[in-house]
């Protein structure tokens, strides 16, 4: 396939995805698939942002939900306190707050590595969760923040189900494009160098601490945007959005799909959403074991297919090609 054809195919796929509610009408009247895909795309943005750390830069963060939560709260609170529903204001506030938080936490964590990085991000994210959970006057505390404003662009109201979907899917495509560009940029290459051999990169003259910090802030900002989209979609923010469970969910998504690739976190988000949303409807209603199934799938991937769904796909493709020759 020529690269032009490939681009055309990707563009067509993206267009099809963004316009899904408008051509699925005849068989998708209940809008179940639209909601599930919308939430899967929010998870995909969240996981893509985490993969910039886990997959590209080799920074296993178990506190990424802090930024998702910060973005969700910032979008909701900004809308309520500034008495505006305008998307540029609330989404801008979400991105700015998440970026600032990521800068503060990033400065503290980027020098640690491996298991210590994991525990440090977990501990710091737990502070954010504690604040969200206990600062009732601002965040609503354990009751959560309800009544998140509708996302408006001038007079266009995105809170209608179809338009909400388009907003999420459009942001998803944009995020994927930005990350694709980042991956090919000198910055992205340098990050992979840091992952593979940090000392060598330092010897080559790269400021590796700064590289890691930049990645941390970019990833945090994108997670904040994902959080804001989640807040718009459900019109609600829960303290659990910033909690350990949500960090774990993003991590599982990245690894099941395949870390270090663009397609991986997307595929992971698809699989996780199917397990969370579709599988329960196939099981008897009193059997609520979606999380356990997710856990088993995750264990199997870590043990036997560390490269995730994408790695399995690549291996299959390679073996098919080898046979054809």
């Amino acid at each position, binding site marked *: 396939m020529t690269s032009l054809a490939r681009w055309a195919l990707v563009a067509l796929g993206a267009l099809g995805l963004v316009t899904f509610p408008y051509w699925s009408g005849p068989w998708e009247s209940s809008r179940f698939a639209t909601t599930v895909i919308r939430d899967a795309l929010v998870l995909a943005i969240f996981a893509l942002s985490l993969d910039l750390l886990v997959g590209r830069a080799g920074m296993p963060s178990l506190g990424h939900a802090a930024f998702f939560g910060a973005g969700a709260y910032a979008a909701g609170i900004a809308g309520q306190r500034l008495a505006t529903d305008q998307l540029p204001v609330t989404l801008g506030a979400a991105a700015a707050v998440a970026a600032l938080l990521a800068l503060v936490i990033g400065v503290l964590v980027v020098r*640690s590595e*491996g*298991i210590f990085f994991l525990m440090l991000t977990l501990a710091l994210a737990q*502070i954010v969760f*504690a604040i969200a959970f206990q*600062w009732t006057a601002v965040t609503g505390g354990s009751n959560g923040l309800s009544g998140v404003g509708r996302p408006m662009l001038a007079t266009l109201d995105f809170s209608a189900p179809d338009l909400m979907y388009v907003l999420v899917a459009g942001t998803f495509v944009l995020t994927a494009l930005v990350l694709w560009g980042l991956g090919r940029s000198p910055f992205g290459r340098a990050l992979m160098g840091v992952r593979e051999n940090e000392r060598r990169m330092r010897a080559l003259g790269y400021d590796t601490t700064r590289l890691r910090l930049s990645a941390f802030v970019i990833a945090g900002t994108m997670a904040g945007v994902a959080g804001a989209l989640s807040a718009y979609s459900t019109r609600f923010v829960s303290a659990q959005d910033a909690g350990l469970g949500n960090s774990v969910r993003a991590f599982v998504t990245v690894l099941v799909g395949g870390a270090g690739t663009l397609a991986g976190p997307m595929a992971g988000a698809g699989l996780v959403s199917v397990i969370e949303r579709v599988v329960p409807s196939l099981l008897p209603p009193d059997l609520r074991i979606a999380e356990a199934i997710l*856990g088993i799938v*995750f*264990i199997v991937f870590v043990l036997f297919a560390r490269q995730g769904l994408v790695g399995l796909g690549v291996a299959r493709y390679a073996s098919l090609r080898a046979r054809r020759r």
Partner: protein
Amino acid sequence: MSLEQIFQQALNGLSFGALLFILASGLSLVFGMMDVVNLAHGAFYMLGAYIALSVVQVSGSFWLAMLAAPLVLGVLGFALEPFLLRRLRGRHLDQVLLTIGVSLVIVDLIGQLWGREVRSLSAPGGLDGSIALIGGVYPVYRLFVIAFGVALAVVMGVVYRRTKIGMLIRAGVQDAEMLGALGVDTNRLFALTFATGAALAGLAGVVAAPVFGIQPGMDTDPGLLYSLVVVVVGGLGTLSGAVAGSVLVGPADTFGKVLFQDVALAVIFAIVALVLLLKPTGLLGRIRVAR
């Protein structure tokens, strides 16, 4: 605060510290020996509490539960280690990730089997009352928890320093690979270590149940989070670190919640982050920094 209140809170802090020791000692042991932060430790703790609930319902004996829960968890840990962690020997980060999966499975299955409501377990007969102590009454069970925690620490200290198994543990914490080269069956040693860690988590689940209750979410808070706090503050992988961490964190958390109420949780984790930043091996940790 009056003097009596301070005394009461100090006892509360100590009994919480004793619980934390039982909880965190297993996590610390596994990390010291295997370089794995077992993120399923909180799930093991939760499972211990629910098993105790069922044992008490069936037999009526809290003491039997204190035997059965660690035993079941120990067997579970012993069975899980060869199938899961051993396959990824040497890949510490992947082993840590694996324990996340184990945790998801256990917690969800607990919810399915025992339900997702808040449950309670009363203290065993004889320990369920209160006694008069300096200007007030104090629950006997909490005093028992302090005594039990101290006794466990002493027993573990003796095993650690005076027995052959303790010698193997100390050697394994120093350098497990070298221990293997000297002819020790490290596979067996690791499986036993993991089993002991799980059993200690289960024991903590039983002992804590009458104080903290039994509910969804206990795997994270206090389970996993507080045991991480203790081992990080005290030092990963040493028994003395687990003791020091518990004695510090128990009272600090208790007084923090009384004095600062809302911000206490944030303060505790700020302390953890500070220790990780300034002295990643913990206040008393002397081990090498594992990747």
